[in-house]
C-alpha cells in the first residue's frame, strides 16, 4: 500500500518560503512525476515526503496515518538520490543488503532478496564490486536495487537519470517504467525534463515556484493546459504563444498553438512568413518561420520537407487545436 496525501503542506527556510501551501493526493500504485524548472521546490517537496526535511505547516498522510512527525525510516518509503548516494566502501551486495541488515532481517532472507534484486536489475556479475568500479548506469541500478529490496510502500526518485548520458537515459527510463509495471508500487519521480515526465507518468504534477500549476495525465496536460506556464512547459518543441491583435482575433489575450498543429502550405493560408532556420531531424523538420507582427513561430513539417532559408510559406493553425488564454494567463 502506498497512498500519500499532502494537506496544506508548507515549507519555509528561514524567511524564504519555498512551498507556500500545497494539497496533493497520490493514489496507491500510481506513477507520479513532479516536473518543473530548476529551483521550483521539487526536491524539497520530495524530501518533505521522505521525512528528510520537517514541514513548516500542514500534514503528510501515508496510507491514512499521519506521518508528519515520523522519522524517515518509519515511513516505509525508499529513495533513489540524484548522486545515487551509494556507500563507497561496501560492495554492491553489501550496499543492497544494508537496509535489510539495519532491519535485523535473517541472513538467509537477506541473501534471497539481494540475489533476487540483483537478478531483476542485471547486477549479478558485478555483485562483489565496489561502486567506484561501476559505470553510471550500473550505479543507478544498484541504488534502485537498494530501494526495492525493502519492499517499500512507495519509491521516491530525485532526478535519478540526470547524471547519465542521453542513450542510457532512454534505456533507464524504460527500465524504471517496466519496474513500475511489474511491482505496481507507488512511485514519485522528480525531474525537470518534461520528456521524462510525459513518457513515464500516470499523473504529472507541474510545479512552479513551489505552487502546483496543474495535475493531470500526460495527455490531459498536453491537450488542455490550464495556464500559460503549463502550456509553455509541456510539449517539445514549445508551444507557440502569440499575443496582441492576432490573439484578439481568436478572442484571447494570448493564443497558443503547438508546432505540430500548424499546417504549412506554399500557396495559401492564414499567415504568410519567411523561413529562417530549419532543423532536419530525419523524421521531422522543425521550421522557424518569421511572420510579421508575431514572435518567430516553430512549425513541424514532414521529415523530407524541402525548404530553404528565405522561402515564403503560408501557415494555418488547426482550428480545434488552438489554446486561448485570458489576461490572467489562465485557459479560457
Amino acid at each position, binding site marked *: 500500500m502506498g497512498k500519500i496525501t499532502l494537506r496544506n503542506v508548507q515549507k519555509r527556510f528561514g524567511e524564504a518560503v519555498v512551498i507556500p501551501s500545497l494539497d496533493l493526493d497520490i493514489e496507491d500504485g500510481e506513477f507520479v512525476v513532479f516536473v518543473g524548472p530548476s529551483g521550483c521546490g521539487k526536491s524539497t517537496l520530495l524530501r518533505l515526503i521522505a521525512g528528510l526535511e520537517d514541514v513548516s505547516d500542514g500534514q503528510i498522510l501515508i496510507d491514512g496515518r499521519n506521518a508528519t512527525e515520523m522519522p524517515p525510516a518509519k515511513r516505509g518509503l525508499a529513495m533513489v538520490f540524484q548522486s545515487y548516494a551509494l*556507500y563507497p566502501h561496501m560492495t554492491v551486495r553489501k550496499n543492497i543488503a544494508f537496509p535489510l541488515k539495519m532491519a535485523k532481517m535473517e541472513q538467509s532472507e537477506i541473501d534471497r532478496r539481494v540475489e533476487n534484486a540483483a537478478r531483476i536489475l542485471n547486477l549479478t556479475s558485478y555483485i562483489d564490486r565496489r561502486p567506484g568500479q561501476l559505470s553510471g548506469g550500473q550505479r543507478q541500478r544498484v541504488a534502485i536495487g537498494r530501494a526495492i529490496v525493502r519492499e517499500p510502500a512507495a519509491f521516491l526518485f530525485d532526478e535519478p537519470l540526470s547524471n547519465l548520458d542521453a542513450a542510457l537515459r532512454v534505456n533507464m527510463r524504460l527500465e524504471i517504467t517496466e519496474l513500475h509495471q511489474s511491482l505496481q508500487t507507488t512511485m514519485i519521480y522528480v525531474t525537470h525534463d518534461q520528456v521524462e515526465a510525459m513518457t513515464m507518468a500516470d499523473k504529472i504534477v507541474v510545479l512552479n515556484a513551489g505552487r502546483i500549476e496543474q495535475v493531470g495525465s500526460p495527455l490531459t496536460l498536453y491537450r488542455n493546459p490550464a495556464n500559460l506556464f503549463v502550456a509553455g512547459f509541456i510539449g517539445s518543441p514549445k508551444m507557440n504563444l502569440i499575443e496582441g491583435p492576432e490573439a484578439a482575433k481568436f478572442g484571447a489575450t494570448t493564443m497558443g498553438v503547438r508546432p505540430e498543429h500548424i499546417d504549412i502550405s506554399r500557396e495559401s493560408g492564414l499567415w504568410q512568413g519567411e523561413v529562417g532556420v530549419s532543423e532536419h531531424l530525419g523524421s521531422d523538420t522543425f521550421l522557424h518561420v518569421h511572420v510579421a507582427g508575431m514572435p518567430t513561430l516553430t512549425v513541424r513539417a514532414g521529415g523530407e520537407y524541402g525548404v530553404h532559408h528565405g522561402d515564403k510559406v503560408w501557415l494555418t493553425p488547426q482550428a480545434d487545436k488552438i489554446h486561448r488564454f485570458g489576461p490572467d494567463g489562465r485557459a479560457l
Partner: protein
Amino acid sequence: MATQHSKTAARLMISPAVILLLLWMIVPLSMTLYFSFLRYNLLMPGMESFTGWDNYYYFLTDPAFSAALTNTILLVGGVLLITVVGGTLLALLLDQPMWGQGIVRILVIAPFFIMPTVSALVWKNMFMNPVNGMFAHIARALGMQPFDFLAHAPLASIIGIVAWQWLPFATLILLTALQSLDREQMEAAEMDGAGPLDRFLYITLPHLTRAITVVVLIQTIFLLGVFAEILVTTNGGPGTASTNITYLVYAQSLLNYDVGGGSAGGIIAVILANIVAIFLMRMIGKNLDA
C-alpha cells in the same frame, strides 16, 4: 615530460636539489655511524679509539634501554589512542551546526600553536604542581589530598600533556574529512533505517579511515621524538619511569659525556623508527591507495 630530451633536462635540473638533500642527510648520519664505533668520551679528549660493537652492546644491555623502549611504546600508543578517539569525538561535535562555530574552531586549534616547552612548563607549574597547581586547588576544594602527578604518574602525565598538544591536529584533519562526507549518503542511510550509532559505524567511520591513517602516520613520526616535554617536566625520572629512547640518547651522550654511546643509541633509534615505519606502512598504508 614526454621526450627523451626533456627527461634529461629535468634530471639535470633537479639534481642539485637531490644532491644537496642527500649530503644533508648522509653527512650527519655517517658521522653518527662513525662515532658509534668509537670509544669517545668528552671527559677524556684525544683518547678516541675504535671499539667495535661495544657501544651498541652497552646501550642495548643497559636496563634503562628496555625501560625506555617500553615507555616509548606506551607514550606513542597512549597519545595516538587519546588523540584519535578524542579527535574523532571533537570533530563530530564541531561539525554540528552551532552558534559561533568559527571562533570555537580557532580556539580548539590553539594548543597546536604553543611551543612544546612552553606548554609543558605551563602544565607542570600551573596545573600539575602539587602545591600551587590548579588540580591541587581543585582537589583541596573537594576535600581530597592533592596528587603529585609528575612524581607518582610521570609517564601518564607526559602522555596527557603531549596528547593535549596533538589533539587539535587530529581534530582538524578529522574535521575536514567529516566535512567532505556526502550528505546524501547520510540521508540514504537514515532512510535505510540506520540509527545514529549505525550511521557512525557504517558510514562515518569507514569514510574517516584514510584521515585516521594520516593522523596515525604523521603523529607517530613526531611522537617517537618527544623530548622537550620530558626534559622540562620530569627529566626522565623518577628513575627511568618517564625516559623514552630519545631522552635516553640525550642522557647517555650529554649527561654522561659519552658521544660514542649516544651515537650508538641514536643509530638504534633510527633503526627502531624505520621498523615502526615499515610496520605502519604495511598495516595501514594500504588505506592511502585508491
